[in-house]
């Protein structure tokens, strides 16, 4: 995977390049907005990581320019601007995700993977991973053809995990996509729902469908590799 990083802070850039590089991602880095815009317009990138405050051209204008020029490369803002409206502003300017600095590398990696996967996925009405099947129209989940008694929020949780099967999704990604929550709850909302979903997916406790990645998040295990 090849991504473009537009970030003016050298230390942050080095941290990201090294960190994502370790996951096999090829990160090309530029420090100013104008060059970033030029490269993003011609380069073959799978994703863009943009700071908002940049010399030359700010991240918001950069992306607006790209989008109006028809460049659809998924873009993630990585910024310290965490005002109440900043996020909405960023998404309205054509951004696909918004991550606040300071951040964990694992979080950035997980979001980047989800972003690239989302942009590649065609419209689906049915998800299938191993023996779990999810009918997105009828809102029903089946294991080996047998319907699972899932509550609406558990279905949404399962859907998000299955769409990103094989990749780690973080707690904050789940809060945003499943519950539309943009703050950090002080109780174990994600954990409680996760344990119920797990119990319903494998009542006997046998097979592990959702694995906890310590300090990072959760991953829906793709069976062929798990077994």
């Amino acid at each position, binding site marked *: 995977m090849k991504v473009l990083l537009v970030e003016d802070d050298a230390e942050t850039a080095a941290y990201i390049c090294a960190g994502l590089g370790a996951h096999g991602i090829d990160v090309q880095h530029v420090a100013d907005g104008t060059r970033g815009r030029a490269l993003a317009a011609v380069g073959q990138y799978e994703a863009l990581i943009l700071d908002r405050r940049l010399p030359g051209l700010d991240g918001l204008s950069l992306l607006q320019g790209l989008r109006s020029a028809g460049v659809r490369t998924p873009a993630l803002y990585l910024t310290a601007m*965490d*005002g*109440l*409206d900043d996020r909405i502003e960023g998404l309205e300017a054509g951004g696909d995700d918004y991550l*606040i600095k*300071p951040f964990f590398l694992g979080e950035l990696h997980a979001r980047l993977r989800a972003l690239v996967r989302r942009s590649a996925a065609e419209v689906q009405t049915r998800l299938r991973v191993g023996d779990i099947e999810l009918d997105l129209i009828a809102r029903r989940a089946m294991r080996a053809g047998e319907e699972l008694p899932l*509550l*609406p*929020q558990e279905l949404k949780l399962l859907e998000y995990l299955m769409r990103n099967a094989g990749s780690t999704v973080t707690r904050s990604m789940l809060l945003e996509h499943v*519950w*539309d*929550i*943009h*703050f*950090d*709850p*002080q*109780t*174990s*909302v994600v954990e*409680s*729902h996760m*344990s*119920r979903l797990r119990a319903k997916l494998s009542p006997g406790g046998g097979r592990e469908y959702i694995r906890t990645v310590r300090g990072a998040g959760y991953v829906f295990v793709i069976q062929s590799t798990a077994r």
Partner: protein
Amino acid sequence: MSFSRQLDNEGIRLATLLIGLFAFSALLLGAMAYVIAGRAMGAELHDFISADQGAVLSGFRSEGLSEAAEVVQQLTAVPRLSARYLLQGRDGRALAGNLASMPARVGTFEVRTSGGHVVLGEGDLLPDGTYLFVGETTDRLAGARARILRSFALIIGLTMALALGAGALLSAGYLRRIDAIIRTCQEVEAGAFGERVPMRGSQGQLDRLSATINTMLDRISTLMESLRQVSSDIAHDLRTPLTRLRQRLESARQAPLSATAPAEAIQGALQDCDAILAVFSALLRISQIEAGTRRANFTEVQIDVLLRRILEMYLPVAEDGAQQLQLHCPEPEGGVLVAGDRMLLTQMFANLLENAIRHAGRQAQIRIECRLVDAQVQVQIIDTGPGIPLEERDKVFHRLYRLERSRNTPGNGLGLALVAAIVKLHRFQITLSDAEPGLCVTLTMPRLLPQETASLAALPAGV
């Protein structure tokens, strides 16, 4: 107040314009009076001439020239200084009257007498060719005209003086008040944030301007205060965890290293960092909400839907603590609507519910009750936990305040402060009361009826 400034100012400019206008209208009035008075006197003269001519003519008709001369004699004898008569024979000899003989000219004209008076009158011929002139000296008319001109000159002069005086006085008053506004603004600029523009209590434009400026200054003070509060909160409350972080790293450096010590120290340091960052962003968010700029983002929020969503979200959490969580909510057609910021309202209810879940203890019962009371929506969150002592109920909404017994449960003491900020932004009301046992949080929100949603755009901006 310098002269050039006087000239510069709007008041004087306006007064000058008014003076010009006054003078022009007085002039017009004067001219009209002049002309009208002239005409009236002319008509009067004509009447008097016709009457006298008639008298002479009728004397002539009844008894001949001698009687006409007699009539002229009588008329002349009347002590009317300004009247002039001449009855002149065909031979050009004066027969009667108080004018010297002159060429027998017919019609209206002026003649100059030997005494230097100008006489305006009419000459005519009697049937036998005798010439009759009846007229009046113009002194009276000229005098009247001169008087009219004099009085109007006086009036114009007075008007101008008055307008000039009033204009100067008025503009001096305005200038003084504008100077007061400028002075206040300069003082505020120089750091005296308590200064306000003095008000007169009238409903005039200047008072309204002063009131607007004062409101703006109040707003600035609020923002400054909020900024000051945040800075001091950050200074106080980030110092403690930062100190702890430093101590942890320091002791990790000094401690005889076991195999796991560095990893543990790093893990602990990361947790400290997270806690510090959480406090930091919560403080920033509170101050952002308190700045009050978000009222522009208000939309209609369906409280019943929002509460149900939050209930579903927290049900498993409560079950894990062996707690019972229930929601009672009416479902009127069109939903239970309030005007607000959906994201903030979600966070407000989440914080209140989390507060109950975290502090009410295991086995507690937590009820969310939504009611429609008149034009209000009332939401109560009632738990069977230990509650909050009466004397501490106000303090829990303050930033970073934590009850003594809660010091050891996780949390940064900002949850309820955030709730208070959101409540204030929305102009809701929140009260804490004793649920005997437990805590009852009552939120009162103005209800938005479905047909009112169109007027939502007209909600006042700002706080």
